């Protein structure tokens, strides 16, 4: 599909349509679950304390909202990384940031902290920041951070993180190791409304920062030198975008483990449909990323009957083949 020239009207129309789609999806997902419960009875006045209320309001809605904010954060970060690195295969997980979060999270789990405790997301978030700092510092040469170096350092960081997790698991007891494995698999569970709101706030702030640099990133995509000649402070833009995207990934990973491919699929589908302009791609990824993960998690919650699948299984099964398809196209030199 050939994308039309980006106008303000087009941004408003597309964003509004995706927002309506997201709100409808949130409402629908709140009505679907492994257990029958009436959304209307749960939300009726005086319903507090009924089974419907506890199922829908205390367990299902916080989970659906968490899926939304995690999906929004991952997809927005993906759009940012892909723009930043000028690489269609860049994914938040490729840069080693989630690896850092996972190492720290696994370490505190083995030390006996309960996975339910808010300490785990906090520490995982610190791990993401630590990994991000290392990636930026190492990838910087002569005051510049090139996409190439970022990707390479990220790959190595992931390898180190994977090894550290294996090491932590090897010294942990068998049951602790299993607990770490489950935590890392990429699963959404019901969380506190407060934690959901916190991750949501991160997602919004990160998306706003990315959006502010979207025009500069568009120019960067046309080439570093021409962007610089048009007055873009290339280094400053790169650093701001990287930090914002890394914060988004850190917040998402800290509450959901390694949910892969959301950050890859969503920006790509949208780029095919809407064109490469990041001023539209960033808000569109935010809204459609939320919609995508809400539905993926709804499938994960219900497809096996009362038992659940980790949502990472659904996103990887959809994303893996899609990744191969993209790779094949880029190898053939097809259009991006």
């Amino acid at each position: 599909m050939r994308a039309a020239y980006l106008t303000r009207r087009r941004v408003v129309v597309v964003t509004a349509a995706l927002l309506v789609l997201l709100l409808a999806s949130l409402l629908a997902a709140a009505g679907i679950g492994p257990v029958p419960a009436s959304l209307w009875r749960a939300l009726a006045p005086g319903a507090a304390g009924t089974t419907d209320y506890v199922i829908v309001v205390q367990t299902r809605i916080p989970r659906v909202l968490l899926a939304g904010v995690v999906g929004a954060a991952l997809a927005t970060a993906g759009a940012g990384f892909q723009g930043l690195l000028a690489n269609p295969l860049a994914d938040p997980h490729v840069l080693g940031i989630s690896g850092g979060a996972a190492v720290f999270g696994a370490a505190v789990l083995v030390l006996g902290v309960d996975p339910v405790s808010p300490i785990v997301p906090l520490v995982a978030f610190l791990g993401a920041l630590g990994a991000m700092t290392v990636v930026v510092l190492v990838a910087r040469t002569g005051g510049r951070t090139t996409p190439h170096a970022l990707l390479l350092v990220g790959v190595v960081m992931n390898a180190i993180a994977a090894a550290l997790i294996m090491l932590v698991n090897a010294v942990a007891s068998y049951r602790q190791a299993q607990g770490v494995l489950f935590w890392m698999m990429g699963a959404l569970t019901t969380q506190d409304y407060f934690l959901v709101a916190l991750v949501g706030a991160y997602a919004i702030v990160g998306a706003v920062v990315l959006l502010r640099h979207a025009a500069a990133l568009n120019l960067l995509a046309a080439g570093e030198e021409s962007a610089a000649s048009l007055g873009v402070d290339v280094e400053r833009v790169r650093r701001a975008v990287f930090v914002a995207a890394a914060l988004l990934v850190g917040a998402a990973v800290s509450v959901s483990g390694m949910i892969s491919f959301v950050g890859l699929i969503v920006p790509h589908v949208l780029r095919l449909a809407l064109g490469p302009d990041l001023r539209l791609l960033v808000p569109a990824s935010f809204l459609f990323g939320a919609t995508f993960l809400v539905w993926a998690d709804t499938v994960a919650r219900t497809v096996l009957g009362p038992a659940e699948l980790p949502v990472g299984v659904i996103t990887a099964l959809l994303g893996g083949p899609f990744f191969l398809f993209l790779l094949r196209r880029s190898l053939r030199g097809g259009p991006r």
Partner: protein
Amino acid sequence: MTAPGAALVVLALLAGCDGAAPPPRAAGAARVVVLAPSATETVFALGAGDRVVGVCAQCDYPAATAKLPKLGGYLTPSVEAVVGVRPDLVIVVPSPGNREAVRAIERAGVRVLVVQDRTLDDLFTSIAAIAGALEVSDAGGRLAADLRSRLDAVRARVASQPRARVLLVVGHSPLIVAGGGTLQGELVEIAGGTNVAADVGNAFPQVSLELVVARAPDVILDAAMGTEEGGRALFAQLTTVPAVANGRIVSVGSDVLFRAGPRVPEAAAALAAAIHPG
């Protein structure tokens, strides 16, 4: 009592009644390596602990195992360490992780006995198999009979109580519970409970919090790694669940519960005390 179990006891009785002196011969394997915590406990309970020359890193009961060489992980044994202690019998539990190692041990000419350790039936089958390999079948029969009578004693203690609806949690985030076909589910039934997740699917399914609301257990047994407070916080909002409303979330975090070994009566008694206190 199941048919094979009964047959086993009969065999044991026959063996016991055999008054004639047994023919002199080597009493089974003399140098034994055991690579699963459950099977290690069984070998010691059969009185053959002095023949054990190596165990797995997770084999920590009875106390005598502390002095034995650790020959690699439960699911990741070290082939050369095992072969190095020159065993004539290696007892393992099957898993995808140790398949290649077990094949290599067999290629080195060592006899390997594979036993299952998922359910109570597995336990009684493995007691018979291990006792057979160690040629201590009398002890095997006595151990099995003793375990059955102690499990029956737990059943008898809770027989007069109404059966409680029980959810047994083994992981907090994501929420993992004991489903059907598990040792833990069987022990809950023996301890006077009904496992409300028995139909949910594979052995340890991941479930949503809303399923807990729908199944409304009377008692939540929390056997997850982590903390007691973590478990309470997880379920605190589910005010319609009787276990939450009545403060019946009980920590039962003990390794005994996860081993289909000779300490299952202790695990059953602990669960009975948690489900039907007083």
